[in-house]
């Protein structure tokens, strides 16, 4: 009885080809390598300073609520990816023909998916960080509507990240790119329209500051206003006459010309 069992096990072992044993071995090595990769990833993220940089972002706080952290998610992701690669290699070695087509598709798709997920996580974290930085910059300005600008910056970054991630896994993103271009164009056009006067004055101001055709203390006549120059800055020239201070935009100064009154 024992003999027959012995024979069955022997037959089974002999029946399983060397390739399968090799595949199992590769799988085991893959798990070990995955473990090592996870360790290296977490140490690398720590060393590069990712941990301090992302501290305080909403994404990090949300992950903390779920008892994990952004670095741990990235670490686990890298581990899972390594194991999947080893599984794929093992299956190829084992030469399981029936799965060829399926695994062939997966082999191309998996790395792309992995990169897409990493880009998405990085995008969310960077978007949060941008929002933090912008709002910190604007903290001195006490305006209720100012809260919109950091939010806008955040979603712009997020949008771009999603776009890159989607294109990575081969989803058609042409429509979204057109949307992005339209949005960027609108921002540029409206900014140019809104700051047209400021830009013109600024350009004129650069010339006035560099060449100083008139300086503080000169008596000048600009656009019908006569007086003593008190201050020239990038955008405006201040001219004073008997208690009246005229603040003249620099583009007017350049457009209408300056009359310097000599001899006093």
């Amino acid at each position: 009885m024992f003999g027959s069992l012995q024979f069955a096990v022997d037959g089974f072992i002999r029946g399983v080809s060397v390739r399968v044993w090799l595949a199992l071995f590769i799988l085991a090595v893959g798990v070990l390598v995955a473990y090592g990769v996870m360790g290296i990833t977490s140490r690398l993220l720590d060393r590069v300073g990712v941990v301090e940089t992302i501290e305080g972002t909403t994404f990090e706080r949300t992950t903390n609520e779920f008892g994990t952290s952004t670095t741990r998610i990235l670490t686990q992701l890298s581990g899972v990816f390594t194991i999947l690669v080893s599984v794929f290699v093992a299956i190829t070695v084992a030469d399981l023909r029936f799965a060829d087509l399926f695994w062939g598709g997966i082999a191309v798709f998996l790395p792309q998916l992995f990169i897409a997920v990493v880009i998405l996580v990085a995008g969310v974290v960077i978007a949060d960080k941008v929002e933090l930085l912008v709002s910190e910059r604007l903290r001195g300005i006490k305006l209720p509507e100012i809260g919109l600008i950091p939010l806008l910056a955040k979603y712009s970054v997020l949008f771009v990240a999603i776009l890159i991630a989607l294109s990575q896994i081969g989803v058609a993103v042409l429509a979204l790119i057109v949307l992005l271009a339209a949005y960027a164009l609108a921002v540029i056009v409206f900014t140019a329209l809104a700051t047209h006067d400021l830009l013109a004055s600024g350009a004129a101001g650069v010339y006035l500051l560099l060449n100083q055709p008139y300086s503080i203390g000169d008596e000048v006549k600009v656009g019908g206003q006569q007086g003593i120059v008190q201050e020239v800055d990038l955008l405006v020239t201040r001219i004073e006459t008997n208690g009246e201070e005229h603040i003249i935009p620099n583009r007017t100064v350049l457009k209408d010309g300056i009359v310097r009154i000599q001899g006093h």
Partner: protein
Amino acid sequence: MTSLSDILTDLVSDVDAVFLFSPNGSFYERFTGVADVAVIGAENTVDADTFVELPIPFSDIQDRIKFGIEGAMDDGLVGEGDVVACIGSLFSDDADFAGRVRVDETMRSGIYDLFTNSRADPAVISDVFEVALELGRKGQKGKPVGALFVVGDAGKVMNKSRPLSYNPFEKSHVHVGDPIVNVMLKEFSRLDGAFVISDSGKIVSAYRYLEPSAEGVDIPKGLGARHMAGGAITRDTNATSIVLSESDGLVRAFKGGKLILELDPEEY
């Protein structure tokens, strides 16, 4: 039978306002719920609602309190006859003294006015003060130097003065507060004449000979020509003069033809 804490209670009882001089965050937190708390310091580090800025770090505690009260009077926080409790730090960085001050109109010396109601930016005036104090402390190669800065209303000042030599600041864009300025002004202070500084802090000219009419200028007797010129120009224009005396080494500020403030550089 009075204990120490009873005496301290007497000091702070029935006050109309509490002034904290440069408190740290946690100390300020302890005052939440106390009415009429004002913070006085160089910077509003604790995000206090009522804040009076100290433009120069007065080393004399009496000056510091007087300046704070003057500022609070100008802002309408306290009025004549109010009693104020002052808490601040004298020896260490933590709060270590408490005082009781009755607000009095005679406290209004114009020092606060000098900074906040001048034509020039308050920051520019305190920058010039810093340069003058530094110059007074170190001098030129160990020897005392004199200097005259006319700040604000630069157009009018330029028209009431003439150049003594070529203007080294012509077509330049040097502002007081720039890091290089201290060294530059120290070198140029060797030559006579006044520095003219605009409202926004641009150094317009050096070597200016001021030509104001000196009639009716009320400055103490015994001060020299530099002080007379510096005082008189502030009567003719809306400028503020900051003068470093070569003979006694003091820094004086004039506004409206009057001596407003006298500081000893050695104390800062």
